[in-house]
């Protein structure tokens, strides 16, 4: 049973403990709502930023057009020109779900500055709070980006073969949600390294740079030599960009699709466990300096 203290101005009730699932859910839902309101503060800057971020896509389309013309071939590594452009557009959607800017750096900063202790003295779980916060940011981002992305995808509709079947759409949505979880827990795990190294910025620079290539953001992994393509497909990074895009394009179907989604779910669970494990181990080292 929760113990109400006093209602605040919004009628919200503080609680000392949250022993049941409903109260826990309610608590993180509040975090979600506050983060949502915070994220809506700079709407105009956000909209302009989203538009500008997509504009380099124009040069990417032109570059790939020149590459296909230069090769004199209709298909490269199983990708027609139209599919290649569709893939590069879909990668933006994948990254919309899986990218977590500032997450690892934020965790390591809280460790370094000692402010992490607020999660230890309050009935609030660090990972629970952060995932609610990130989910709110993602929802805002997706809602706000719907307009600019909608316009861009409408203008580029010729590169797509219409909307895929309901089952593919469901698999695509699931792969995106799992890519969000992989992205979140992977970066949280990197942030937890801060318990031992204090500043993870350097590690993060390298991880982000490598992830850009290994996740298939630059080009489909299939274009790489066979060995490297096989190697990168065995790593979890492909689920942050490549895999959802090829699911949408219908390049992974049947048993391969089920197997792919199962592996993606495995990696999500693995990183969730890893982040939680590092957090628990890290707390034993934590000195709560500063703050």
């Amino acid at each position: 049973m929760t113990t109400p203290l006093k209602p605040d101005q919004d009628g919200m009730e503080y609680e000392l403990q949250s022993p049941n699932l409903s109260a826990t859910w309610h608590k993180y839902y509040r975090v979600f709502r506050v983060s949502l309101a915070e994220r809506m503060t700079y709407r105009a800057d956000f909209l302009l930023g989203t538009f500008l971020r997509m504009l380099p896509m124009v040069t990417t389309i032109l570059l790939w057009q020149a590459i296909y013309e230069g090769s004199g071939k209709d298909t490269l590594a199983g990708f027609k020109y139209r599919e290649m452009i569709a893939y590069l557009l879909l990668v933006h959607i994948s990254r919309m779900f899986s990218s977590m800017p500032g997450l690892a750096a934020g965790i390591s900063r809280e460790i370094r500055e000692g402010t992490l202790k607020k999660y230890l003295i309050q009935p609030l779980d660090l990972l629970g709070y952060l995932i609610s916060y990130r989910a709110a940011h993602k929802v805002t981002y997706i809602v706000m980006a719907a307009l600019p992305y909608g316009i861009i995808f409408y203008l580029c509709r010729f590169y797509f073969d219409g909307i895929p079947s309901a089952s593919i759409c469901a698999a695509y949505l699931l792969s995106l949600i799992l890519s969000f979880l992989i992205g979140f827990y992977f970066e949280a795990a990197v942030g937890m390294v801060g318990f031992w190294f204090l500043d993870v910025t350097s590690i993060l620079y390298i991880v982000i740079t490598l992830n850009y290539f290994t996740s298939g953001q630059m080009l489909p992994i299939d274009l790489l030599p066979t060995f490297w393509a096989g190697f990168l497909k065995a790593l979890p990074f492909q689920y942050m960009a490549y895999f959802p895009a090829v699911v949408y394009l219908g390049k992974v179907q049947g048993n391969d699709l089920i197997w792919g989604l199962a592996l993606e779910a495995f990696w999500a669970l693995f990183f969730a466990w890893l982040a939680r494990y590092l957090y628990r181990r890290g707390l034993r080292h934590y000195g709560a300096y500063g703050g």
Partner: protein
Amino acid sequence: MQSQSPTHEFFPAPPSQTWKRYPRLLARLGMFTLIRELSLRGNFLVKVAVEVLWLGILLAFYETVFARTSMVASWPKQDYLFFVGCFFAINGVLETLFLENCNEFSNLVRTGDLDFLLLKPIDEQFLITCRRVDWSVSPNIIMGFCVMAVSLWNKGWEFDALRVALFAITFTCGVAIAYSFMLVLTSFSVWLVRNQSLMEMWWLFSSLARYPREIFQRGWANSLDVVFTYILPILLVVNVPSRVMVKTIEPKMVGFIMVVTVASLAASRWFFQRALRSYRSASS
């Protein structure tokens, strides 16, 4: 032995001496930031490693592309790699000398710290855009030149003094034009305060500069070629120096880039000073 009066420093130096002190100041500022960077050597080395990694990824990308085609927009592999190296070197110069300073400008406006810089007896544009040298990205300049050298070697390029001289001139012009663009975008911070999207705009411009003009010379993209070559001439930045080295020399384009350089430097300086006049100190 002659003793110098301390009051001597309060008298303004003649214009010729004033301009002479800027290279010396830049060297001192560079030395100061280098010492500061080297106090965190581990971090500095990792940042350098990231730049090396990034170049490696870029080269892996083009290796993959050229494994499937022999030509991209009439640029054979070695010529294209020269272009990539040239972009990397120009971008390296811009990031080393100016980018961090321009990024910092909106913070100076928002916090009011710009007041302290404006009070100093030195050119504001110089102090604001050159006060910190980001040494961690400086290896990009060397790496860019290495990529250019290797591609020329693989291409079997024969030394041509005229081409080298023209390359040096147009390379400098390219840096100056890109700097002017950056300065104009930075100046907007005075009115907008938050400049996240303005910096996105800079990345947009730099993403245009990183490709040969030929990829824009088709169908609907022709208008982009015209706009970004003659109106907002960001496409000249890497294209002209690269072409004078590995393609036919086009005297008209060489002359054009020089004119554009002078015009863009003058226009951006005027705009920056116009922006500073609109600055209202934000803090006490």
